């Protein structure tokens, strides 16, 4: 019994997303929710991934990245190139589709991660606002260069991207992201990130190679953002460089801090609620964004630690290992092997 509870706890992001998926699918099959809500939920899913990855850099490692959409654009283009240009003309159906899609997401993520490492390097020398400006400049440079590359459409954008991202697939990647990032946060790597955030000098003095971990944090965040960008490209079926400007980056900052930085729950709540909110305000026509802005300011004034106040829901937490009364799955076996 206890083992089952532990297993559930271990895989909670997947279980949560699975339940959500089943609920949505049932509602959808009964026509209670329509394609419009599916579309919004898909963007919400992409935004959750973006916000969680930004959280890794800004919330957990204490760096200050304001050009996150740049990584997203690299991922979007990277994966779209694979599905649209390399496997051109053969829009895969059925079984062949998934591997191609996964490959493309991997490519998108890798491109973004490589550049993410590159951007991590200035973070060795620059702190706070100065680093922020470099990430902003980076986002603009990426955008400017994408406009000039003709094979991927230049300013006119890339058309004919196959519609490979489905709600289920996006939800799976959201679950995967939450699971991986949660695991990472409760590992030596995550602790190193948090140590750097809380006190860089002390972290350094305790033997943590701050340089290495900061770059790593940028790299992982960029990879996730790249995958999210790939999913985004395959929802929208059309991408163009100007979609990934500073406005987009600042959207993710808003989701992150309105939800509560340093908390995965906050990222999920912030991204989902604030993606849905402008859609819910559509009845206001011209005054929609005015009210959205007022709500945002009000949220920050009345819950300035973010909607979930930097806390974590229990199922996104990992308890201290020794609090478990008995060894976790397979641990005994392993321990025996080591012995």
């Amino acid at each position, binding site marked *: 019994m206890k083992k089952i509870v532990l297993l559930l706890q271990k895989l909670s992001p997947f279980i949560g997303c699975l339940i959500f998926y089943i609920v949505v699918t049932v509602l959808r099959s009964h026509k209670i929710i329509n394609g419009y809500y599916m579309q919004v939920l898909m963007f919400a899913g992409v935004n959750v991934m973006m916000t969680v990855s930004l959280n890794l850099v800004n919330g957990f490692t204490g760096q200050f990245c304001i050009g996150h959409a740049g990584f997203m654009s690299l991922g979007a283009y990277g994966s779209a190139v694979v599905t649209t240009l390399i496997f051109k003309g053969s829009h895969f159906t059925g079984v062949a589709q998934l591997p191609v899609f996964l490959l493309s997401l991997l490519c998108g993520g890798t491109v973004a991660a490589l550049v993410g490492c590159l951007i991590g390097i200035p973070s060795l020398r*620059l702190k706070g*606002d100065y680093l922020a400006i470099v990430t902003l400049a980076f986002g603009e440079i990426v955008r*400017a260069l994408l406009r000039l590359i003709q094979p991927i459409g230049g300013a006119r954008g890339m058309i004919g991207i196959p519609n490979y991202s489905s709600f289920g697939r996006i939800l799976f990647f959201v679950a995967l992201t939450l699971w991986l990032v949660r695991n990472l946060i409760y590992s030596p790597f995550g602790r190193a990130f948090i140590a750097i955030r809380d006190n860089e000098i002390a972290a350094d003095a305790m033997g943590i190679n701050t340089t290495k971990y900061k770059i790593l944090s940028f790299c992982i965040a960029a990879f996730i953002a790249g995958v999210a960008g790939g999913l985004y490209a395959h929802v929208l079926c059309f991408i163009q460089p100007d979609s990934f400007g500073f406005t987009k980056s600042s959207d993710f900052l808003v989701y992150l801090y309105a939800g509560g930085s340093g908390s995965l729950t906050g990222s999920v709540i912030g991204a989902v609620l604030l993606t849905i909110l402008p859609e819910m305000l559509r009845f206001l026509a011209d005054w929609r964004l005015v009210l959205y802005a*007022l709500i*945002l300011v009000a949220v920050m*004034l009345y819950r300035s630690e973010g909607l979930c106040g930097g806390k974590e829901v229990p199922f996104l937490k990992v308890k201290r290992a020794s609090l478990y009364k008995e060894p976790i799955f397979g641990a005994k076996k392993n321990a025996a092997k080591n012995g």
Partner: protein
Amino acid sequence: MASILQFLVYGLQLGSVYALLALGYTMVYGIVGMINTAHGDFLMIGALSTFFIAKAFESINADGTYPMLIVGLIILISMMFTGGIAVTVEAIAYRPLRYKPRMIALITAVGVSMFLENFPRALPFIGPNPRPFPTLFINRTFNVLGASITSTQLIMIVLSAVTMIALDRFVAKTKIGGQMRAVSMDKDAANLMGINVNKVISITFFIGGALAAVSGICYASAYPQVEVYMGSWLGNMSFVAAVLGGIGDIRGAMLGGFILGIAQIFATAINSTFGYAVGFIILIIILLVKPAGIMGTLTIEKV
């Protein structure tokens, strides 16, 4: 040679807009410690209010130009108005967050910025249309060594330099300037010393807003078009300029603004295709060489 000089004039023109806006940005940052992303929108409010105030004075407008006195009055009213908006914004949206992490204030500022842009846009009598900005300054063109420079450009460049010096002296010499420096160092200690911190910060925002109005008027005189979204990107660029110069440093903001403006113009002049990207590459290089900005000194945390 003449064209290089001409480009320099353009660079100074663009740079002076950045510089004027960055001055207010950096002052607010230096004293309150927050990144006020809505600062660019104060510029828009300054320009837009000037448009409407000038319209109200239209009857005095003889043969397309306003008398000097009226121009002064228009600018003054616009500065007061924008300053007032800035003070109101601070009192409502920023003051309750003063002791919270600065990222919180930043996000609030994003919301404020969105409000300041969308509210006038939704108002039927303002709306999204671009409007021609009235001619406030006499426009004459001078020829200097083959390069032409207009009186508007001269006014802008001189104005930004004068404002920078005035602001620098103001903060360094006056009583209220001294209080500002005290507040910037330690709000609590300043409070204990009998300084009314709220008042000092209000004044800071008022000056910041008024400066934004001046830069808005300059910008709109040089590029005579006003619309509700004109400030958002300029605000970002002036933040970049302020950081480039060393954020919190008044002289640095000025220098950062001019360097950014000139760099962008020359990058465009050399190759307009890559100009935009090159401007940012120059920025990154400068920051890697001077990690605390041009005028900023790297503060080493005491261990």
